[in-house]
């Protein structure tokens, strides 16, 4: 039995005939669509490494079944940057050395992009720390992550105001 779904990933529509309804959104992205930028750290919703944006909202892709995503608009780390450069969160991560091994990084960046889009303005670093606490970084790059998110949030606010 196959399940037909249509979803848009990073602007590209995919019409899929899924032969297995156990496939998670994370495994769909990684194993069937070849988008391996999204990482699996726990497969249990406990680490945030698999964070993607689904219809603009942050989601742990390991906790969602692919078959539930019919009609969804999904953005992954591969599709975050505009064609001509980096997303402000990405640029800030590089500058603040907000990562070491880089394994949690796609999830951190997608989570930050979602947090900022939800209206976090970067003024309260404690709120950023809280808001980013669903994304574990075993390398302990938290200081850089908080600073990077705050900076990107401030930039987003200034640009929105301009």
């Amino acid at each position, binding site marked *: 039995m196959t399940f037909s779904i249509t979803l848009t990933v990073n602007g590209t529509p995919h019409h899929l005939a899924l032969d297995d309804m156990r496939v998670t959104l994370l495994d769909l992205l990684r194993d069937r669509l070849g988008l*391996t930028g999204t990482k699996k750290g*726990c497969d249990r919703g406990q680490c945030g490494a698999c964070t993607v944006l689904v219809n603009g909202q942050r989601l742990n892709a390991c906790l969602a079944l692919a078959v539930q995503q019919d009609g969804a608009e999904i953005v992954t780390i591969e599709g975050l940057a505009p064609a001509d450069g980096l997303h402000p969160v990405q640029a800030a991560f*590089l*500058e603040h050395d907000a990562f070491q*091994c*880089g*394994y949690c990084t796609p999830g951190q960046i997608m989570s930050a992009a979602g947090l900022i889009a939800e209206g976090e303005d970067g003024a309260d670093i404690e709120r950023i720390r809280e808001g980013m*606490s669903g994304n*574990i970084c*075993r390398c302990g790059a938290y200081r850089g992550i908080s600073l990077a998110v705050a900076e990107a949030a401030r930039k987003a606010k200034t640009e929105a105001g301009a």
Partner: protein
Amino acid sequence: MPDDFAPASHVRLGSNSGQPQTRLDGLAKITGQATYAADNAPEGMLWAVYAGAPAGRGRVASLDTGAALAHPGVVHVITPQNRAELQQDPDARAHVFAWKIDILQSETIRYAGAPVALVLAETLEAATEGARLLAPEVEPLPVRIGFDDGEPFEAATVGIGANPATSVGDLEAGFAAAERITEVEIETPPQYHNAMEPHAIVAQWQDGRLVIDTPNQAIVMSRPLFAEYFGIAPEDVHIRSPYLGGGFGSKAILNGPQILACLAARETGRPVKLVLSRAQMYGPVGHRGATRQTLRLGTDAEGRLTALAHHSVSATSSFDDFLEPAANASLNTYASPAISASHSGSRWDIGTPGPMRAPGEATGSAALECAMDEAAEAAGLDPLEFRLRNYAETDPATGRAFSSKALRECYRLGAERFGWAGRPMAPGQMRDAKGRLLGWGMGTSLFPAPMSQALARATLRADGSALVETAAADMGQGAWTALAQIAADGLGLDLAQVEFRSGDSELPDGGVAGGSGHTATAGSALFSAGQDAVAQLVRLAVEDPASPLHGAGNQAVRAQGGRLMLEGDPSRSESYAAVLARAGLETLAGNGRGARSPEAAGAHAMFSHGAVFAEVAVDPDLFQIRVTRLVGAFAAGRIINPRLAESQLFGGMVWGLGFALQEEAVHDRRSGRLVNGDLAGYHVPVNADLASIEALTVPEEDPFVNALGVKGVGELGITGTVGAIANAVWHATGRRARRFPVMIEDLL
């Protein structure tokens, strides 16, 4: 021409080292393009998932292989019954980095979660379900877990081949001379590395060669470990490990699932991918063994140590011998006329522990720093003053001079930055604006500065650029960047002119990313390879009548920015490209070696040092503990890249926080299974756990550690931090840590 060229004495580095260059692999990592092992999916690949033992000790009585094989998509099941012969005994310890491993050699269960069968299927979903359907039935035996139930034994070695007992001076006389004696017993729990990237391997056989994608901290050295199991030559193992999603020691040691994946690929004739689930990370891939440590500190009337005795009972598995060398932390930190460090073992029915970020130093310094704090209190001295009174001017264990030691400056700078002065001596004296109890504590950081062995090649190219190559491992510490900076300086080129290839076993051996010695070792090899290439280029120039440098002595020529120039007369210069063009050379290769000579190693004691200051806030009603400030000041020789070094030090300090307040694996003592074997139950620090963190570095020139003057920063930060936090908790609450992690219930 020597084919391995090692720099002889302290060198002047060029303009690339010392720069806060952002990560050269950064763009790949922030755009999702960096390829980790599990991201590979070769054509025709099968998925492997293993079923783990549901009990800690006993025997697998039956497996429902029929049910697994009947599941659509399942292709094959490997059990001890049908597992093919291997050329190496998994219970032999063929190499210092080869632990005894579980690869379905029998039905005996040695720890919960050990592989009992491997399922191969066309999809991950089918393999996962197949492994579940195996539903192993076991004949359990009572498990022995915990210091009270473990089986005691005398240790032959601790750590990797270290002596289990070392003593200097007359301990009895030291204690007899003491004005007071402080005795402390502290336990540290089993802790798990929990790199964010689960262990993973993609194995394929190509014309008799084994090609492996797997995160690995010792890329070339691991080849024979794989090869021996399959009776092939080490050169026929190709390991690709460009990015590790964290390692922390766990990816230096060969593990059972890796061999099982290679075997499955050979048996099925197809590539096989095996990725551990998070739960499977608690068993076959190492951990930090538990310790029960006892310290006795004798002090005289002035608060000087007269004797220091440190014993650790270190836990290991029932079948292998890695023991956390915790007590050795007391051998090199503080001056005392008599010191003894000793260990014994306790056998538990758990997976074998192994090196985990600062193995021995982390556990040992945690206990030592707590004990020092108690001794300071007993002596009526400020903890910093007490440590200064016991400052080791020479290495207490050997009497050797330190190659460099700017610890005094670390204490001064850290204390100043933190605002340590004016700290009340008695606990429970400070409150913050929210009414929380505040406490300040400190600890000394110490970590050895070892080197392994590495080789490198640097090839100048006709266009004046260069290719540098070594099989280094970047597990996040920044090898891709810091090593390229050193390599560029060795070549007298700008970083942008250097192409760096790494992370692949076909390249020259880059040594081990371990012991915080990778930058020093692989960096030395790369630097000397560059120098070797440049030396050859200089020879070509000075011997060539057409060169503006003709006739100059080799020593009088300087290499910088891709040009050779006469020292003192920059008008006599030419580009690398010009020299190569006239000589008709497309390329010119130099080789380099990084290692420390035994004479150099024996002449000095070599350590990185630091001082960590912590502030905690404790809720007076709920006793919740929050670390509000961490300030570390560290001296670790020459810093190649301050941006990356700071991140490494932060990482270590964050680990110190996890050690002090969160990390603990808990076993069910009936079944032997972990009750918190996932990231919801096993707590590691998250972003909100730490409010403010600073890592300062104290400049330190060290002409003895290696020609580059580089020590290491990867493990230093965790030492010192654990004790600083525990001591701050005491200062806030008056409660001394008797075990880690310090929890609310310890403060009630």
